[in-house]
């Protein structure tokens, strides 16, 4: 049987209490919200914290609050709650689409938005049990020295597998963090780093508390398209988030963000450049999809072959773009 390694469990009495415990226990402690990612990884001995700080009692961090300035979502809001929220569905459809296709209904009832954003990066050579990894001699992300996917790579290339991440970047969301030195805000685009072992700018003693989505100008449309082996459960092996703003029939702003092709979501400025100034005719959409195809460089670290995922880049980018183009 797969047991969790031993740990002491401390429920957080307040956010300040949780931040204080992280400061006190340092590297020996980890926070948990839904547990769907962390506990699975702990069963495989990818993490063995001495102390687990439970954030679940912090009900005050579970909310979707709409205002004129946008929408604020508490980090502990479950994915089901967000998927069922009518304001998110009508005003931020790409986020609705993304959270609705994360794993399974049971896991969405447990998993939170904060947990999905802080999902550990994934790799075929990392998300394995201890004996499997030991038989291979481990990898640099856990217990070993080299990257098994790209042996000459100085950094880990494990894949960002969060469906919400590319969408939040496309929408220009801001993330709020709380730490021992107070609170700070980070644009979603700057939160992620292209390093599979240190995939966020969040320090280990900081806790993600809130996601703020900006109010969107009229004519904004967005979509997310996800490729996975089994549509009932799997992590993305490719994701494409698109946000477009159209004024008088002309695209004035665009953002295209790819997922599951690097350790962070990859923004494609060339795709945006192919769209801005056009009337989003099929040829402009093709050019943007070509740019997404050129920018995405899948590695051999998820399911699905590299050529298949590479080929699907253009297909899924084109589908996400078509879903945003007027008249579609």
């Amino acid at each position, binding site marked *: *049987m*797969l*047991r*969790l*390694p*031993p*740990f*002491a*469990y401390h*429920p957080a009495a307040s956010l300040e209490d949780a931040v204080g415990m992280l400061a006190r226990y340092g590297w020996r402690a980890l926070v948990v919200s839904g*547990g*769907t990612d962390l*506990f*699975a990884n702990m*069963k495989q001995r990818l993490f*063995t914290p*001495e102390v*687990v700080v*439970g954030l*679940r009692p912090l009900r005050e961090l579970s909310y979707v609050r709409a205002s004129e300035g946008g929408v604020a979502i508490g980090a502990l809001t479950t994915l*089901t709650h967000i998927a069922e929220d009518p304001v998110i569905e009508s005003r931020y459809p790409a986020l609705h689409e993304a959270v609705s296709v994360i*794993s*399974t*209904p*049971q*896991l969405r*009832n*447990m998993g939170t938005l904060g947990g999905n954003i802080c999902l550990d990066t994934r790799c075929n050579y990392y998300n394995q049990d201890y004996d499997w990894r030991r038989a291979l001699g481990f990898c640099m992300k856990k217990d070993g020295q080299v990257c098994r996917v790209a042996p000459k790579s100085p950094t880990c290339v494990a894949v960002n597998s969060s469906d919400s991440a590319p969408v939040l970047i496309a929408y220009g969301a801001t993330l709020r963090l709380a730490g021992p030195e107070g609170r700070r805000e980070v644009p979603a685009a700057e939160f992620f780093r292209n390093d599979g072992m240190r995939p966020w700018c969040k320090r280990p003693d900081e806790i993600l508390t809130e996601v703020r989505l900006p109010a969107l100008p009229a004519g904004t449309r967005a979509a997310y398209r996800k490729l996975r082996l089994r549509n*009932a*459960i799997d992590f993305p092996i490719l994701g494409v988030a698109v946000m477009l703003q159209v004024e008088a029939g002309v695209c004035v702003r665009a953002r295209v963000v790819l997922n599951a092709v690097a350790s962070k979501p990859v923004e494609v400025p060339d795709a945006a450049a192919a769209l801005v100034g056009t009337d989003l005719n099929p040829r402009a959409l093709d050019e943007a999809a070509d740019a997404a195809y050129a920018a995405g460089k899948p590695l051999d670290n998820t399911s699905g072959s590299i050529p298949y995922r590479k080929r699907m880049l253009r297909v899924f980018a084109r589908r996400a773009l078509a879903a945003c183009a007027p008249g579609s």
Partner: protein
Amino acid sequence: MTVAPPKILLQLRVNGTDMACAAHPNKTLLEVLREDLGLTGTKHGCEMGHCGACTVLLDGRPVLSCLALAVEAQGHEIRTVEGLAHGPHLHPLQQTFAETGAAQCGYCTPGFLMTAAALLETTRTPSEADIRQAIAGNLCRCTGYTKIVEAIALAAERMREQAEHV
């Protein structure tokens, strides 16, 4: 760490009954239900959140007990497959699963029953798409899902009829 943290007292409300036991804080709800409370109806499947065999209801919502800590389930209403029947009377879902042959080896069945029970409590007239979406997180490795979908639809129909006759 050299010494495992001591056991803690857990107070859980399962199927409407308050239960208490002492267990280590790293025990999952699945392990406590089966090993400390003797409720072995909930099954160990993959234990990694992939299969849905360990599904229980937490405040009416299906969750995976293999990835939930027992200590965090305190203060919530837990329902397991043992709580479905009323005395000698099977839940309509248990009846229809048996009648339509929706259970083959039966290992995934408790998880399917709990997921389906939660669906029928919120959706009186589920479409086939509703049913398939609801059970998307439950794997059956014996066969396809046709009989399971039929059993859930039939149970929904009987529950509607029962509600009309009351």
